[in-house]
């Protein structure tokens, strides 16, 4: 086995250990001092309804109830069941049916957005963007964020809450599509070509930013989130982990972009490997967050600890991978194949999301199994997956823009912390890598690691978090990640303005 593969296995092991550490931390954060909790629970039970942020859309469920023997289980489950029922029925009870003109505007507007996303994802548009050096999804997607934000304003009334509720299934499907697409890139042949020390490099460039960003995010929410909702502690840790997950990754297109400003001989492909493998951090991050931070804990039939949820997640990914593999192998090529692929991704993402697990992670596992064991049709499927990836991201950006609440200053402050923390942590990681593992690393390679803008998967991570954990804190993370992505790319563009590398000149 090559060194790169060893490194990757180490990275996976580290990620697993990290998950367990995260789980323990999360559990500790939930448990806290027993006496204090008991008092809090008594207070909670006295309250008729949990405090709700009026701007946060659906009310965030109250802190996760404890399931120790001394807990009054029936009262808590009863209260949660009531909350769940309220959450389920509120939109239908409170919101009157919109007039046909509003519905029509929503339908037509959304179809236009879909068409724009499709066109923007077209290969010709992509080439044109690259020629202008704005080939990153986030920069190219900035107009979609703005469009989504504008379209959600009451005066415009295109992306109304009703429309957004109607298109929510597309988000779940899109998350699954992205997860499956990422999984498709991690087939066996991928590891065989991996350069030495890649695994160690990935550990450093993801673990250090994750640790720093998690700490910063946790502290930020802990101090500025006082009084916003109940049960702050686990949420602060969760937001920290989400921020860490989103910030650990870089845009896949970053090496191509930076190479345009780099002499040919200095542009080693190994950084592309590192950045590609960083996507795993995103997948594992969402995996652990969704396994250990369970929304609506207590209102469902399956009462499992976080570690067991992790097993469920892996098991589901494995089983669905085998089912999808068997399906695609048995089905006729042509239109039936398309139906099978669409159905497989839908059912996998839907099941994961139904269990409140990460659709990205489960579909990633299924996709990795399918593409490691699949037949000659793999390349064809990969092309289909990649062709739709950009439109899906653009659609995410429209919806993220529509759900964006930029009037909360704490979101912007969070963005500042996030950008500074990410830059600093990547700089530290690149420095350590150059000193200990890749002594021959060039200045340009270091530049790629430190200055790489964030990728579209980071956006998908926070979009998924909005689905799993609706509430004000995720809104801050959305502002931090989307705003931060754009800010970093613009800063990079400005820094490189006027410099033309060999590719740009060509």
């Amino acid at each position, binding site marked *: 086995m090559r060194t790169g593969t060893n490194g990757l296995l180490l990275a996976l092991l580290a990620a697993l250990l990290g998950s367990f550490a995260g789980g323990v931390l999360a559990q500790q954060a939930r448990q806290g001092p027993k006496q204090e909790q008991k008092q809090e629970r008594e207070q909670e039970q006295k309250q008729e309804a949990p405090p709700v942020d009026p701007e946060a859309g659906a009310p965030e469920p109250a802190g996760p109830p404890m399931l120790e023997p001394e807990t009054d289980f029936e009262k808590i489950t009863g209260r949660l069941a009531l909350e769940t029922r309220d959450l389920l029925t509120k939109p239908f009870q409170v919101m009157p049916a919109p007039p046909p003109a509003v519905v029509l505007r929503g339908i037509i507007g959304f179809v236009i957005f879909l068409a724009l996303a499709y066109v923007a994802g077209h290969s010709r548009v992509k080439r044109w963007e690259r020629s202008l050096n704005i080939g990153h999804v986030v920069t190219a997607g900035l107009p979609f964020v703005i469009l989504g934000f504008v379209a959600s304003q009451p005066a415009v009334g295109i992306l109304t809450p009703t429309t957004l509720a109607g298109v929510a299934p597309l988000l779940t499907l899109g998350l699954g599509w992205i997860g499956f697409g990422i999984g498709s890139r991690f087939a066996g042949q991928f590891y065989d070509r991996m350069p030495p020390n890649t695994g160690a490099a990935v550990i450093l460039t993801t673990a250090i930013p994750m640790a720093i960003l998690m700490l910063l995010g946790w502290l930020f929410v802990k101090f500025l989130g006082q009084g916003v909702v109940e049960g702050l502690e686990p949420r602060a840790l969760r937001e920290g982990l989400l921020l860490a997950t989103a910030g650990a990754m870089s845009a896949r297109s970053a090496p191509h972009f930076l190479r345009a400003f780099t002499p040919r001989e200095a542009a080693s492909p190994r950084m592309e490997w590192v950045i590609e493998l960083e996507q795993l951090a995103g997948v594992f991050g969402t995996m652990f967050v969704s396994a250990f931070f369970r929304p609506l804990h207590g209102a469902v039939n399956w009462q499992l600890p976080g570690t067991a949820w992790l097993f469920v997640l892996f098991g589901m990914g494995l089983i669905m991978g085998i089912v999808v593999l068997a399906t695609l192998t048995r089905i006729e090529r042509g239109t039936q194949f398309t139906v099978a692929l*669409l159905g497989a991704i839908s059912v996998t993402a839907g099941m994961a999301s139904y269990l409140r697990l990460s659709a990205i992670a489960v579909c990633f596992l299924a996709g990795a199994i399918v593409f490691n064991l699949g037949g000659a049709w793999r390349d064809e499927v990969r092309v289909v997956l990649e062709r739709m990836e950009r439109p899906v991201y653009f659609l995410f950006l429209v919806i993220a823009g529509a759900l964006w609440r930029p009037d909360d200053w704490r979101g912007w402050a969070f963005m500042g912390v996030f950008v500074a923390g990410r830059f600093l942590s990547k700089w530290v990681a690149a420095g350590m890598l150059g000193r200990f593992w890749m002594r021959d690393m060039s200045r340009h390679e270091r530049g790629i690691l430190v200055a790489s803008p964030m990728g579209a998967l980071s956006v998908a991570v926070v979009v998924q978090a909005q689905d799993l954990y609706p509430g004000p804190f995720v809104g801050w993370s959305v502002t931090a990640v989307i705003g931060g992505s754009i800010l970093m790319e613009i800063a990079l563009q400005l820094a490189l303005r006027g410099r033309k590398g060999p590719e740009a000149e060509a």
Partner: protein
Amino acid sequence: MQAILLLTLLGLMHATRTFSPAPLAGSVPASVVMAGGFLLLTALFAGNLAKGIHMPRLTGYLMLGVLVGPQVLGLVTEGMLGQLRIFNGVAIALIALTAGAELDLKTMRPLFRGIAWITLVGVVGTGLLLSVTAFLMRGWLSFMGGMETGTALAVAAMLGTTAAAQSPAVVVALRKELNADGPVSRTVLGVVIVSDLVVILFFAFTSSIARGLLSPSGQQAAGLGTLVWEVAGSMVLGVLIGVLVAAFLRSLSEGGALFVVMVGFLTAEVGQRVHLDPLLLALAAGVFIRNATSYGDRLHHEIESASLPVYISFFAVAGASIHLDALAIVGLPAVTLVVVRGLGFLGGARLGARIAGSEEAVRRYAGFGLLPQAGLALALASLFTRSFPQLGDQSAALVFGVVALNEMFAPILYRMALVRSGEAEKLAETPAPPEALPQAETV
């Protein structure tokens, strides 16, 4: 293997549903995606299994829907079905667009006489016969029990029209499956396509009258204007849609499939909200593209590559929506309508073919090609139940019951008729002009 996969998916779905019997807050979109993907995959397997035992695939889709729906296993709930019915509108529009794109007036000219007489005697005659039967059976149908004679006549006419619908999709699919060609299969194809148009027009007409009669009295005056708007407006706007689609197909070489689905979605969703008939809109667009432009085949190809997921969902959701409990109540009227329909089509087609001087094979076997029901009938049944919710579950059960019975048995009969007429496997020997052989949908 596909049976094992089907069972595995049923088990996985059941296991997942035990997490929480009803979708949790925030899980509603997930449950819709899960149910949609589950229906797509399992119906695909069921369709292939049905094909393996010489049944049409769509029978498999429908039966699977019945099995997993709320009435039997309950893996797909009413709530999930409600969200998944968004496919109905798209499917209705795509079916009508396909039917319109198959209506090549130039190719069908030699068969016009036979087609016209069979349509008139067989289809229109059977429609009238079915309407009279439904009216006479009103004592058995609780939803027509308290109606005045005029209202009952209008509802009976609508039921008769819906029950008279046929299936170009099944006819084309069986023709392709058997490689059949000859006067029987060609005449049947012509009749079912022309009948589509006739049935759609009759449905629009009768439903407008019924809507006027069933609405509060103040709205009755608007009946004629509504009908004119619904029929004439739909046809004019449909032609405009056809112009747009043709312009897209001429300008761009890729993305046509997605574009056609988008057009179907917009036609269905916008059409019904501005009181236009999505069926007529799409049919007019399809007829225009086939006969006034050179993009008919391209449109057919684009629809074929994009429509299968929509069709499968549509049929599976339709199967899951069948109220078996209500069907038990309306079982006798449904069987009566199926029998009357069968006798009417067989007798009417024979008489029409004799008047037109068609060949003996056409006289004997063409009627069997009119028996299958699928896309259009389900589309009309869906429109019927959506337009007149006040008629209740029993009316929905009746129209879907008639369609379900015809779906299950009629394709088998038409398959036998094609084999006996000697037209099976003729296509390979004497290939027909491409215009007459639209690419069969796998439904």
